[in-house]
């Protein structure tokens, strides 16, 4: 029983990573109908930036911030860098392509992803890097017989906090309403006075920043990072976006969490090597019976 709970907690942990990355995908997808393949690489880049900060500033970090503080500062740095990079990528690789339609945008996004991934490889090398062990808190706990690490708890808490903040922003603030409106009907939204460029700026700073923070979390949790991690996580996160329903941000969050839990349960009770197959099969079944995702999509086609 405890093992099941541990698996669920593991599932929620990795699920929250997927959820946070999925949010970035969902925001861009909802507004631009673009599968931002580069988003996974934003996440990876964030992870590497956090790594660099911790490795090169390790002495500085421990004396001034302590272990936990170091993690937070690494996250902030990564978030800031990626917010900038996100906007740059949008300006350089996506904006010029919008008039050409959706399919060219897919190719361009793939191109951007290739560029970013290989940039990481060129800068940091093709081999695995590892977050320095001495900078990662290593406290084990047992709560009600369930084994869990302090790091996991903190990560879960931070992830849920971030999701809650984002949920609040999207559902309760004007910015969020602007994003949702633009996602539903771009032209009418701009006619209603919503500045499309501001919306784009917002989603391409917030999304990548979230991805970057997630990258640092993943780095601390798994320690090992590689330049291909963007693709691996990105694909799963995009799956979560679809699972939750396109353009549905809370849906993307739930999709991510559900995906993570399914993956862990699949690994534990079916087989570790077939877990991904299990996850994809679930996705396909969901789409067959609920073509617009678990939480549906707002739009219906008017004939």
């Amino acid at each position, binding site marked *: 029983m405890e093992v099941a709970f541990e698996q669920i907690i593991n599932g929620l942990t990795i699920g929250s990573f997927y959820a946070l990355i999925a949010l970035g995908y969902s925001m861009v997808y909802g507004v631009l109908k673009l599968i931002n393949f580069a988003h996974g690489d934003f996440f990876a880049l964030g992870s590497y930036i956090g790594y660099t900060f911790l490795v090169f500033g390790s002495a500085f970090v421990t004396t001034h911030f302590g272990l936990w503080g170091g993690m937070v500062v690494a996250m902030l740095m990564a978030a800031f860098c990626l917010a900038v990079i996100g906007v740059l990528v949008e300006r350089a690789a996506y904006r010029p392509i919008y008039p050409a339609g959706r399919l060219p945008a897919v190719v361009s996004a793939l191109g951007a992803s290739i*560029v970013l991934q290989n940039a990481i490889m060129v800068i940091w090398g093709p081999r695995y890097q590892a977050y320095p062990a001495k900078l990662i808190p290593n406290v084990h706990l047992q709560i009600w017989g369930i084994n869990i690490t302090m790091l996991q708890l903190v990560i879960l808490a931070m992830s849920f906090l971030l999701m809650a903040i984002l949920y609040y922003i999207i559902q309760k603030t004007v910015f969020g309403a602007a994003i949702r409106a633009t996602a539903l009907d771009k032209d009418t939204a701009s006619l209603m006075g919503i500045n499309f460029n501001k919306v784009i700026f917002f989603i391409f700073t917030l999304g990548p920043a979230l991805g970057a923070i997630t990258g640092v979390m993943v780095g601390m949790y798994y320690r090992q990072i590689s330049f291909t991690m963007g693709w691996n996580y990105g694909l799963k996160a995009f799956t979560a976006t679809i699972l939750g329903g396109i353009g549905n941000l809370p849906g993307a969050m739930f999709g991510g969490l559900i995906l993570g839990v399914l993956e862990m349960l699949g690994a534990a009770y079916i087989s570790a090597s077939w877990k991904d197959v299990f996850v994809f099969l679930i996705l396909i079944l969901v789409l*067959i019976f609920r073509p617009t*995702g678990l939480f549906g999509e707002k739009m219906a086609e008017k004939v």
Partner: protein
Amino acid sequence: MDAGTTTGYERFFGSRQAALFAVLGVFLVYPFLVDNYYIDIAFYFGIYALLGLSLNIVLGEVGLFDLGHAGFYAIGAYTTAILNTKLGIPILVLLPVSAIAAALFAYLVCSPIIHLRGDYLCIVTIGMGEIVRLALINNPFDLTGGPNGVYGIDFPSFGGPFVIDSSIEYYFLIWIIVAITILGLTRLQYSRIGRAWNFIREDEVAAGASGIDVRYYKLLAFVLGAALAGVAGNIYASKLMAVSPESFSFWESCMLFCIVLIGGMGSIPGILIGAAFISLFPEIFRPFAMYRMLIFGLVMILMMMFRPGGVWPRKRGTAEFSSLLSRMRKKNA
């Protein structure tokens, strides 16, 4: 404008015919002028051309987002690999078998999902492709050899001394297959079926309202595309003499997608150019080592910026691309 008395080929420019002959000449002479390494590159160009043409049916003609096409390629390759190494069935016999295996797989797997809207279909095809790849890695029933794959595949043989085992012979084999495929696909383009595919791409609802069975034609596109990818898999498997799952990754599906988009959706000459780009670019830029993929990505972005319709987009309305045979038939008509 000549309405044409045959299957719908329009005017044919004399200059095009000359260009075609020139290209044909280069193709015939090329392998005799360079060494095996470069012949092999041209072979892989041919494989990608066939794969690009197969994906073009689904993506270029019908407009369906297929990002899992490598899965069909894998089914073809592994069918050949397994049946040849385990049961000794000859490669050439396995060519239609692999095509049918891939086609059957496509039929079974796409039937329940063919109604899905574009973006959702996209993710499902990604999922299908990944499921195939992961299943191959996991070595079910000890058939697929796991991550190492299957090795020891034969050469295609016509019996006796007529075995295809050299680079030049593979080169001609694949390009003859590509040429036949181009002939068949061009005819399809100008037929009721090809038009139906294009109507579906333009406006599915209007197509249905004009009397087209949308579901049937979408499935047909997938099945035919899978069959051709299966053929490519068969030839690829025997050339390499081994197959492993990493040749059939999501990345590979993305590259096929790019071939169609960069070349020009629905445009056969465009697909050839796209295939050339994808297969030759990494070779040409090999001296740049680490940076070549970076440059590759940049070129993709730039291509979409300046030629989003593809390098050689399909032309409608005025002159169409037509073939030698139609011109000859028009002479006799």
